[in-house]
């Protein structure tokens, strides 16, 4: 009994938001008469939030170092505009354009990083300036008008689906196969890490909990794949997001680079005095953010099939909020990729569900604000409890 309580207590912070997400989904599932969970809607939900999620992953690294980047929304719009100008006005090749856009994104990140890391200007100021600068540049680039449509190849990155190799009529079998493979990998990795922990006599989840947890994860993956398969299959952006999530989870958990970024966020002085070049780390995180903002900018433009001067407006708020909802700390050193994803989905489901229910945009904002506040409050309360 005691152990059961302590298991819940020790893991509530890790899984709390995930549970919250599940409850929110169930709530909207019921209150929208099932519309929320329809294949079309789920697909839409993923597509609508893909760019936020891509940027949230980049923002995680920045937030872990202890600062924020306010310029990402403008950068996202700026790169979308650039892509449109290059492809639509100047008829550049799609892939060449994508490379150029990513490179410019990196350069934009380097610009921010230069001021923050090497000139010691507070990131808040640098990126606030960036927010204005790049918004101005989009307006200039597009002359204040929308530019489109894009070549079909380009549109596919945002609105295409993976091809089906099995050609089973009415059902996208490939998606199910991918789901099964993914599930097996995840369960295997979790099992292996559990075995390792046991070998070193660290605390692990008791077996029933372990099985229960994996069962939930597998059913979530398979459920999603099944829903998608009965529509058009897995969207390309979902694959893109999945790959990014895996890569960045590995970077943050398993590599020296990740270790250093977390150490820097935890105590910058001590990390520096351990012989680690913290300026370079901070610079890297901004460059990385620039590249991911560029990617998100292209996905967003491709989805709308045009670049508009207002594209990406206030995205930075959703991106930052997603991270804090997902358990990242405002003082740095704490946060996970999975947390950022969960946070982004909570925001996404709220948006989507409330829109279906016909709740006005004004109240949507109020509710999202309250959710952010409550999530962080929950975190603080948890922290205080475990400190005593």
């Amino acid at each position: 009994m005691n152990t059961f309580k302590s298991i819940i207590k020790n893991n509530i912070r890790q899984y709390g938001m995930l549970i919250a997400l599940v409850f929110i989904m169930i709530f909207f599932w019921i209150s929208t008469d099932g519309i929320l969970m329809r294949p079309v809607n789920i697909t839409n939900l993923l597509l609508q939030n893909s760019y936020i999620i891509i940027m949230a992953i980049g923002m995680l690294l920045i937030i872990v170092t202890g600062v924020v980047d306010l310029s990402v929304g403008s950068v996202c719009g700026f790169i979308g505009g650039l892509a449109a100008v290059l492809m639509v006005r100047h008829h550049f090749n799609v892939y060449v354009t994508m490379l150029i856009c990513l490179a410019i994104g990196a350069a934009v990140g380097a610009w921010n990083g230069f001021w923050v890391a090497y000139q010691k200007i507070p990131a808040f100021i640098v990126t606030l300036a960036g927010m204005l600068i790049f918004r101005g540049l989009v307006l200039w680039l597009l002359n204040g008008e929308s530019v489109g449509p894009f070549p079909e190849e380009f549109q596919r990155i945002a609105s295409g689906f993976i091809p089906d190799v099995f050609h089973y009529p009415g059902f996208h079998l490939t998606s199910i196969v991918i789901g099964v493979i993914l599930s097996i990998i995840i369960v295997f990795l979790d099992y292996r890490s559990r075995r390792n922990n046991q070998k070193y006599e660290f605390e692990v989840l008791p077996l029933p909990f372990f099985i229960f947890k994996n069962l939930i994860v597998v059913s979530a993956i398979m459920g999603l794949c099944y829903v998608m398969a009965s529509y058009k299959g897995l969207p390309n952006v979902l694959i893109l997001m999945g790959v990014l999530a895996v890569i960045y989870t590995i970077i943050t958990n398993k590599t020296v680079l990740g270790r250093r970024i977390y150490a820097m966020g935890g105590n910058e002085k001590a990390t520096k005095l351990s012989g680690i070049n913290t300026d370079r780390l901070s610079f890297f995180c901004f460059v990385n953010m620039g590249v991911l903002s560029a990617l998100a900018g292209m996905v967003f433009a491709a989805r709308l099939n045009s670049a508009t001067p207002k594209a990406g407006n206030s995205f930075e708020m959703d991106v930052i909020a997603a991270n804090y909802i997902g358990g990242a700390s405002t003082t740095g050193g704490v946060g996970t990729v999975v947390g950022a994803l969960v946070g982004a989905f909570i925001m996404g489901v709220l948006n989507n569900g409330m829109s279906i229910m016909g709740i006005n945009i004004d109240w949507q904002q109020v509710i999202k604000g309250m959710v952010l506040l409550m999530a962080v409050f929950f975190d603080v309360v948890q922290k205080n409890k475990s400190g005593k």
Partner: protein
Amino acid sequence: MSEVILEMRNISKTFPGVKALDDVSFSVRRGDIHALVGENGAGKSTLMKVLSGVYPFGSYEGQILFMGEERHFKDIADSESVGIAIIHQELTLVPMLSIAENIFLGNEPRKNGIVNWHEEVQKSKEFLKIVGLRESPQTLITDLGLGKQQLVEIAKAISKEVKLLILDEPTASLNETDSEKLLDLLVEFKKHGMTSILISHKIQEIKKVADVITILRDGATIETLDKGRDEITEARIIRDMVGRDLTHRFPPRESIIGDSIFEVRNWNVFHPTHSDRKVCKEVNLTVKKGEVVGIAGLMGAGRTELAMSIFGHAYGKHITGQVLLHGREIDVSSVEKAVKNGIAYATEDRKSLGLVLIQDVKTNVTLANLENIKEGMFIGSHKELNAATYYKNKLSIRCSNIMQKAVNLSGGNQQKVVISKWLFADPEVLILDEPTRGIDVGAKFEIYTIINKLASEGKAIILISSELPEILGVCDRIYIMNEGKIVGEMPVKDASQEKIMERIMLTQEVMG
């Protein structure tokens, strides 16, 4: 026999994974100086935190009786209101506020809701007089040395009409003169009927001032010694603490000294903000192969500044001079380069410069040498766990396991983690800045043994310490530093505490 002012009965306190206190009973007589000693992680600080309400009623088991009444403190303010004041192991003054503001923080004298500055300053003057600190109440805390800050803490405590004063390792970061002053003050307070509880790892001072000594080990009371009743010897206290005899305080040293391997030439450093103030002046020093070199000096002599400026210009501005390793000049213009070139510096300020507190023991131990645990692109978790476990055993770091966060370790064990980090980095030159501050006698011996071993492996070791016996017991040669200059150098066989102090005083006068 005077009455009992405090009685703690059957106190137990558990943290996730550790039982920090296990059925401890502890009673203090009114008017005594009661010492609490024990190894790092024995539970001394925890016991005092239970007493002062840092850990509120309900989060521990057992009873607290203070002045005859059972007490259920729910926070510090609660225990303060009945006259218990605690001065924590880590000072808690606000650096950018004045002495007076700090003394009355949260307790400001008010008139019509507005802080009465005049009264605050007047009263502060009285308290400063009592603790013997000759400073204006308007001086900012940052401008005070650690010894004086400690006195301000005490002034703050007595401003609250304290009946029981708890001091958690107050002398750990003080030099001898300041320590003595502080202890005299306690004795003076005692004459006026105040009771105090003193935690310290310095057995000599305990022996000198304490009326009663309680020894804790592994969260349990081992023995209570009474000055009037029992025969108190250092050996006995140490045996109770460590659980075995420790006949020597310093391991025997057989030094085989070779050629010079590390050299600093004409080293000049300026203050980072007051750029006309020279902090290190024409410093020259050498360390030979297998040699342990000590730097003695008073607080503020510029020893830490010297060490940190050599360690990748981590301190100071407009640094000039040369650093040579094995006769070749090396680049120390950034910490990264200094570490790559084989220099390590274990800081004296473990909390803000030494540790990433929110991370676990293993992460902190391996942070300075992640290259060594890399497997391809990734961190080799086996290598990491093995490394951390090795140092945990080697320095007997007391933690529930190496996944425990550094912030939850006892002060002394945090210090051991800092040292482990630099041992793991495997440097050529190891600069240790007050490495045994807050560390118990047993672990000190362990650290001295490691220093000896590193020296015999041919490493160059520089030891900065304010404890002269330590410098004399461990080093082969001693530099004496004062006001940013090397003012003397002597082999240990010619050195004594008197000679070192004399050297410092002499140069003080000449310059002053």
